């Protein structure tokens, strides 16, 4: 447990010390959050609304940098990502799955399927 942790602070979880993202354990807005697990820093200032289960950037990444979780690359930054920013389909793309780059960023629903 981190010392001086504010019980009211939102929590996120970083799996591996090498990771540059942590997963939110609660919905959070633009506010400081405690990082549990294997963090580089004890807290991160979240810059925008991020939902439970989504990722916050814990170490800024430049466009083209690898996004690392579990200590391994899970994708590539498609733009510069600031510490505290939401990391998802809009700024991170898979290196093997082309289709997921075209999904709706909020719902994950495929936009490339014709219904007529």
């Amino acid at each position: 447990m981190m010392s001086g942790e504010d019980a009211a602070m939102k929590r996120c979880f970083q799996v591996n010390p090498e990771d540059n993202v942590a997963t939110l354990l609660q919905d959070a807005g633009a506010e400081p959050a405690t990082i549990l697990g294997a963090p580089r820093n004890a807290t991160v200032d979240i810059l925008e609304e991020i939902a439970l289960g989504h990722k916050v950037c814990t170490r800024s990444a430049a466009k083209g940098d690898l996004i690392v979780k579990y200590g391994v690359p899970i994708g590539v930054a498609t733009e510069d990502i600031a510490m505290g920013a939401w990391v998802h389909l809009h700024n991170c793309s898979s290196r093997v799955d082309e289709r997921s780059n075209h999904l709706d960023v909020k719902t994950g629903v495929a936009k490339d399927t014709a219904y007529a």
Partner: protein
Amino acid sequence: MPERSWNGYLRDDGRKGIRNLILVLYTVECASFVAHAVAEGEADVHVIGFPGCYDNAYAIRLMLALATHPNVGACLAIGLGCEYTQPSRLAEVAERSGRPSDWFFIQEHGGTRSGIAKGKDALKSLRAKLDVQTVRVPMSWPDLIVGAECGGSDGTSGLAGNPVVGRFYDFLVDRGGSAVFEETVEMIGLRDVLRSRAATPEVALQLDRSYEKAERYCKAVRQYSVSPGNFAGGLTTIEEKSMGAFAKSGSRPIQGVIEVSQQVPHPGLWLLDSVPDEHFMQFGYTNPNDTEGIMDLISTGAHIVMFVTGRGSVIGSPVAPLIKVTGNTRTFERMNDDMDFNAGSILSGEQTLDEAALSLMKLAGDVASGELSKPEALGHREYFVMYKHQDTPQLEAGCRA
């Protein structure tokens, strides 16, 4: 973790089990009612069976692997009488492995009532033989084989449930035990990670072949194992989802790839490839449900299977006890009758991953020592033996055009 030992059961073939079960096997769906009625009310009797009338090499190997599983001490095979799969042949192989075995066809015994009576009689004499020849033997971590599977996953599975099993696997393997994990179709995007875990260059080639088969399978069904709900829940890429599942393999070198019904060749960490071969019926299905994957793991000789489920599940397994692990504290509390282990303590910061993995190891030791897991105590014995093609022999002469 201090060294731990318990009393197991020594089979004539040298394998050591943590349960002393009698297995009833039926060879076609038509015999399933009688088979279940025979086992009814007998705590040490489990049932598995194959529903198809036409036989299947994969299903026969799977049934033989379960009939000669270390936790099984005796077998009773029951057929209807007109199906392809022969109960006498199953009983023969089990008998040859030193397990007292018997078989019969229902059609030769008059029907439902007389079939059940015949089966109950057979059980009585099998149990008498088993009681006489049962030899207890000390077992410890190097004798133990554990399988792992996940299903009904949620956001906690990749962060806590699967990682705690992975760290337990590290501890088990370091102490000379064996660990098996599977679901190669859920490893898409992890080719380099997989290869980096290979114990030898030869194993790296095996892992490559399995990975490529899984990739071809996914392309053939036009879908990686990821859905809109996964993305809405916060997963961004298939690599991320795959790592969440792969986390249950821990961090130790992979000793090789085994297929369904193949015994773990020596202690260490092994990858089970349960994906069907592609040249038959365009693959067929790989894991149609959680129970099918659990059966595949048990077929490798796993004494215990860890089942990671964030959302919760109410299945169990025959032959090898299932230990249900969740990373979701709410699921653990809501489904407390069914869940064995709560890894949610890692996410709340109450326990480190190592601490939680040591508690899980203690639980595995308790279940190996004879304590019933929750699904086992509830009487859950779900099984699933399906038509599948792995190394199916070519029978060119079978059908003439």
